[in-house]
């Protein structure tokens, strides 16, 4: 005989309490709640066939006034009458009861907002001060013609092109050197790792001081007094090519000097993380491979090109993916080094533009449109990357 699916009541109850809260906040029409309560009542009625005590579950219907009841009543019911349940049923009950707290929070703060962001992006200038008009995909049309959006995208592109390879290369070199049974490993690791656990806010305060045009350390070191690193909107390629008499404009002028300064700090900040991850990856490679290669007379380069590189590729790929995704979310570095987005908005990034639009100009719908486009871009890039790059990744050791 089939038994009563108490775990289904529990899960439906959890959803129901979330639904009641949503309705109270105005995210869900009241009618849905009534339908939900009705379904819950039907489930309870069905339960009566398995024993009269299931009537007690009907107490969950007070969820209309006290939302958590829909989840708590089945839970308490299971605690009181769960002794006689079979192993399988107990598993189902416990499984759902343990998963729901975390799941509910994820639904509220991760899953629902993803859809709500898309919903918001379909309106014209949502700022909750006045009713917003539905405008379809108008925000996206404007966004695609928005020069600032393209500038932010261009900066993101340069950020990936500059920081990811440089960071990975430096980190790989450091990790390989650290892996040669070097003395003082702990000291070196600490030196490289400390920047990563340092708050970017504090780090940026120091870097601003290092980049200071008059009293900055960097200008003293490079003998370039007065060079205002963080307020120079000129592209670095344009700056480098200028003495040669070559003029470059627009995108090809490259990231502004200010943005390059930000990138340098970012590489400094994240290097330690990459070193630690790569070192863990290196230590996972069996020593026998190197010993065998040494017996065959392989040189230092051959060993690293033919053993380290392919066997480390999953780690490198992971860090590359992380760097790519991270580039779309660069905010703190930029905000603390150039709080206004730089001269002529030359250090604008996607996350910073989103922040400006949403919380400075209070245009939530346009900001949501930026968020959705970023989401799609990341999704697309990750898929492409998986298709093209991951084929070259060697997962077997």
């Amino acid at each position, binding site marked *: 005989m089939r038994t009563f699916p108490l775990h289904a009541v529990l899960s439906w109850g959890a959803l129901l309490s979330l639904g009641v809260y949503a309705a109270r906040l105005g995210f869900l029409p009241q009618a849905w709640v009534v339908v939900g309560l009705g379904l819950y009542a039907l489930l309870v009625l069905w339960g009566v066939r398995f024993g009269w005590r299931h009537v007690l579950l009907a107490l969950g219907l007070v969820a209309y006034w006290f939302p958590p009841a829909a989840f708590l009543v089945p839970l308490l019911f299971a605690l009181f009458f769960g002794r006689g349940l079979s192993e399988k049923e107990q598993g189902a009950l416990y499984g759902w009861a343990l998963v729901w707290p975390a799941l509910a929070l994820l639904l509220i703060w991760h899953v629902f907002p*993803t859809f709500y962001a898309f919903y918001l992006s379909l309106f014209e200038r949502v700022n909750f001060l006045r009713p917003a008009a539905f405008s379809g995909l108008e925000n996206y049309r404007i966004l695609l013609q928005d020069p600032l959006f393209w500038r932010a995208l261009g900066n993101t592109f340069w950020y990936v092109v500059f920081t990811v390879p440089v960071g990975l290369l430096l980190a790989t070199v450091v990790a390989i050197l650290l892996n*040669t049974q070097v003395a003082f490993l702990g000291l070196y690791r600490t030196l490289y790792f400390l920047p990563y656990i340092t708050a970017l*806010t504090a780090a940026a305060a120091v*870097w601003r001081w290092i980049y200071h045009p008059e009293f900055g350390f960097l200008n003293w070191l490079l003998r370039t007094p007065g060079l205002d690193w963080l307020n120079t909107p000129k592209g670095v390629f344009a700056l480098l090519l200028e003495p040669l008499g070559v003029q470059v404009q627009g995108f090809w002028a490259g990231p502004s000097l200010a943005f390059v300064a930000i990138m340098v700090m970012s590489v400094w900040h994240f290097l330690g993380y990459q070193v630690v991850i790569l070192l863990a990856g290196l230590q996972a490679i069996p020593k026998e491979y190197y010993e065998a290669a040494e017996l065959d007379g392989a040189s230092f380069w051959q060993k690293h090109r033919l053993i380290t590189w392919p066997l480390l590729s999953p780690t490198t790929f992971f860090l590359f993916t992380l760097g790519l995704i991270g580039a779309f979310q660069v905010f703190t570095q930029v905000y603390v080094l150039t709080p206004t987005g730089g001269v002529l908005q030359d250090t604008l990034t996607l996350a910073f533009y989103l922040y400006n639009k949403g919380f400075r100009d209070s245009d939530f719908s346009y900001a949501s449109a*930026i968020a959705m486009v970023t989401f799609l871009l990341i999704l697309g890039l990750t898929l492409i990357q998986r298709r093209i790059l991951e084929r070259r990744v060697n997962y077997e050791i």
Partner: protein
Amino acid sequence: MRFKPTSLLVHLVLLGGGLIMAFPFYWMLATSLKSPQEALQAKPIWVPERMKPSNWLKAARLGDSPLWGGLAPGRSVELVFPGEKGRPPKAFIPRAPGAFFDPRADGTRVEVGYGEGAWRVRLTNTTGEAFRFLPLVVLWPKEAPLNPPLPPDAIRSQGEDWRLEWVNAVPGALGYLFHNYLEAWYAAPWGRYFFNSFFTALTQVAVGLLLAALAAFALARIPFPGKEAVFVLILATMMVPGEVLLIPNYVLLARLGWLDTYFALIVPWLASVFGIFLLRQFYLSLPQDLFDAARIDGAGYLTQLFRIALPLSLPGLVSYGIFTFLGAYNALLWPLIVTQSPEMRTVQLGLQAFVSEAGSDYGALMAASTFVILPVILGYFFAQRQFIQGIARSGLK
């Protein structure tokens, strides 16, 4: 161990890189101990006066307490300037700019006299309140050799005289060394900021850990219908970048009336996909026999979780704790969005506000940055292994 020339090269490369990585930290520390005049030098000062132990001894003699200095009512302090008897120096307490009444300038008796081969400047507190600090200006004739009792914080030329300035003539050793730290600490309600940051971060760690442990245990060890679906849903939320959630979560918090409260800082980050994955991985790696044995002894799922799985997954818990704490403590964007009032600021926001308000007082700014990163750095030195392994673990799939 036999000496290898390559290992020397390895050490040189690692040390060079490490010094570059560590330089910003040294520069922050050095600047935090500089007087404004030392900080604003085009040619950098590597070791500021306040870093030299011989000056600490000099400072310990000035002020009531050798450690913290100060000048209690009725007490006096004597500054001795060895030199020839000639044109007398002048000494006075500078008035606070714009102050109608300045107890320090008005209530301190300044006497300059010559005796025993030295000019003596005697400062006496004639007010009823104790001074924590007492600024002093001495105009010293240019023709006489200068040998001050404590290196002045600024030397300027003023006509026939050198204008020697001290920010505090009664510092004591620690008051002298940590002058900028004290200044920065009293300039903003840092105690409140630190409480906010720690409260937020620790609550996130504690509650997040519990929720993640429950869900991870269910996903790893309990067979229940719908498990696959839940797992896929959790996986899918990993695909959504954090930017997408900013706007809708802000709206959600606004509707809940939670903006500018601890709820806004804590609740959205309680359920962590990373934590669930990490702990699930740990629970999966534990041998099934362990759980079978417990089952035979009559342990329920909860007992299995809290008595077996949780203690055995301690490294995973520590790893998650460190990661979450770092993320919460170092976060800037989220607190920036959801809080407005100064009472709800976290340390990072406080530092950010301090950076924009402190202007060119780089000593105080670097001091504030130093004590903001201090808790994390101290934590790292106490639990180095856990930090490194915790971070390394985030790269393992």
